Every structure is written in structure tokens, then in C-alpha cells.
């Protein structure tokens, strides 16, 4: 249909469209999209790097924990810090 043909919008029935409730799955969906998307991030890269001196066993444990959950080391470090903060607050 091009512009010349009029089709009346039935606004009354738009009541069937309601706001949606928030879900808890957003972080998971973000992660899933990060894995699947071919479109790259255009955000400015604000990542840095640090060396951590610790016993080999601690480093090995940290790497293995991150790997088993398929997190990068930096992302897993943030998860651990958040968990520490929560426990500290609680």
C-alpha cells in the first residue's frame, strides 16, 4: 500500500499492548549476545592490565575457576570482588 490508500488505525484495540515486567535474565542475554554477535563493540576500550604475584597454587586455582565458568580472568576477578563486597555488606 502506498501513501494514497488510507487504512484507519484502530487505536481502541491498542489496549491489548501492555508494559512488560522486568526480568532477571538480562545479564545472561547480554552474555549470550556477546558470544554470538558479529557486530563489534564500538565502546572506547577502558581495559588495563596488572601483574599479580601469588603462590602458583592460588594462580592455578583462579585460572581454573574462571575457565570452568568460561569467564575471562578480568571478568571473573570482578565477580569475586562483588561477592566479597556482598558478604562484607551482609
Amino acid at each position: 500500500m502506498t501513501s494514497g490508500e488510507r487504512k484507519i488505525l484502530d487505536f481502541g484495540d491498542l489496549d491489548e499492548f501492555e508494559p512488560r515486567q522486568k526480568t532477571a535474565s538480562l545479564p545472561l542475554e547480554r552474555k549470550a549476545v556477546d558470544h554470538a554477535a558479529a557486530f563489534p563493540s564500538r565502546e572506547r576500550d577502558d581495559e588495563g592490565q596488572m601483574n599479580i604475584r601469588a603462590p602458583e597454587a592460588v594462580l592455578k586455582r583462579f585460572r581454573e575457576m574462571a575457565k570452568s565458568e568460561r569467564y575471562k580472568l578480568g571478568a571473573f576477578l570482578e565477580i569475586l570482588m562483588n561477592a566479597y563486597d556482598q558478604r562484607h555488606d551482609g
Partner: protein
Amino acid sequence: MPIISFANSKGGSGKTTSALLLACELATARPVTIIDADPRHPLTTWAKLPNKPRNLTVVTNQSEKTILDEIEAAAARDPFVIVDLEGTASRLTSYAISQSDLVLIPMKEQQQDALAAIELVQEIHRDMKAVRRNIPFAILFTQTKAAVKSRTARFISKQFHDNPKLTTLQAEINERDAFSAIFAVGGSVGTLNSKEVNNLESAQLNVHAFAAEVIELLRKTKDARREIA
């Protein structure tokens, strides 16, 4: 409930204009939030002009990291959320697509726009796999000639309309004085003065037909989801 994203990685394909036309039309009946995710923020600029519909909230996107939260907050508040995306192939676009009930792909009847539209369709399929649900999408031709189309325009348009794997809207956003005017003077096609804008009534009919077809598509996809459930 519907979250409608306007996406095409090609700039100048008519995303912002068509998003605003639909938002203003829907806002005559129901509350609408439009998220301005174009880094130039054209809708945020438009919102500062007079005659913005009372039912329409404009949210300025902050960054790729905030888009999901912005969409979620808007969808919890208003029944209609429209996302005007940036004209680049970016992760922000993928995030918005992942939350959408309908992705509209505005494009001019030109080869560059067509290639970008195809690239976007491929990305939508990847995002569907990521979130494990169907994300309906449709092609919307924009800036089309209301009267006679060129041979190239007809050729490109036909390829999309004839493709059984694609939904292409019958309604088109024509190239019209009124659609440029709203960005200069504010408001919608419903608040423009017919003495100052050429063919205003045709523009209003054009927007009406476009909105009616989008609503029809939303109802179809809603019914399809209900049947699956």
C-alpha cells in the same frame, strides 16, 4: 509490550524519521517511549522543539553498556518502546535487537542500503540464536518517490518484495516535505500547518498506513507467540 527497533548499519537510511513518525502516531493513543541511540541525538534535539506529544517520552541513550537497562526500564513503564539505533554495525544494535518484538529495517531503494539491510538480517539471525527466540523483522522502504520510481528503485524493491524469506512492508515512507519539517519546527505530522507544508494530508495518510501495517504485524507475531505457548 512491543519493543520496536529501527536498525540499519547504513547511515541516512531513514531510521530516525520513520521511528519518530511511528512514535508520534502511536502516542496519539498510548504512552510511548522512544530511545535515541543515535550518537548525534537527533530525537533529543527534536524533543526540545515545541509540540512534542504529551504521551511521548524521549530517552537519550548513554552508552552500549546502558542500552539494555534503558530498554527494560522503558518497557516496564510504557506499552510501546521504540529504539532508534545508530547507523553503524555495532554491539549496541545487537543488544537492542535481542530485546525487540519487532525490528524494522528502513532502507532507501539503493544498492548500498540493500547490502547493509542484508548484513543486518544476518545479525538478527545470530541474535535470535543467542537469545533462543524468534525476533520478527521487516524491511521498510523509505524516502521513496510517491509518484514515479526509477528503474533501479523498482529493481531493488522487487527483489525484497519477491523474497519469500523476508517480510517487506507494503507501506513505504515517501520523500515528503512534512517529514523534513517536523525536525525543523517540532511536533508531528498532526501538528504541522497545511498552509506551510506541501501535501500535508498525503503525508498524514502515509504515516497512518505505515502505523496500521506495523500494528497488524505486531498482532500477528503476538498471536503466533501465543499459539506456540
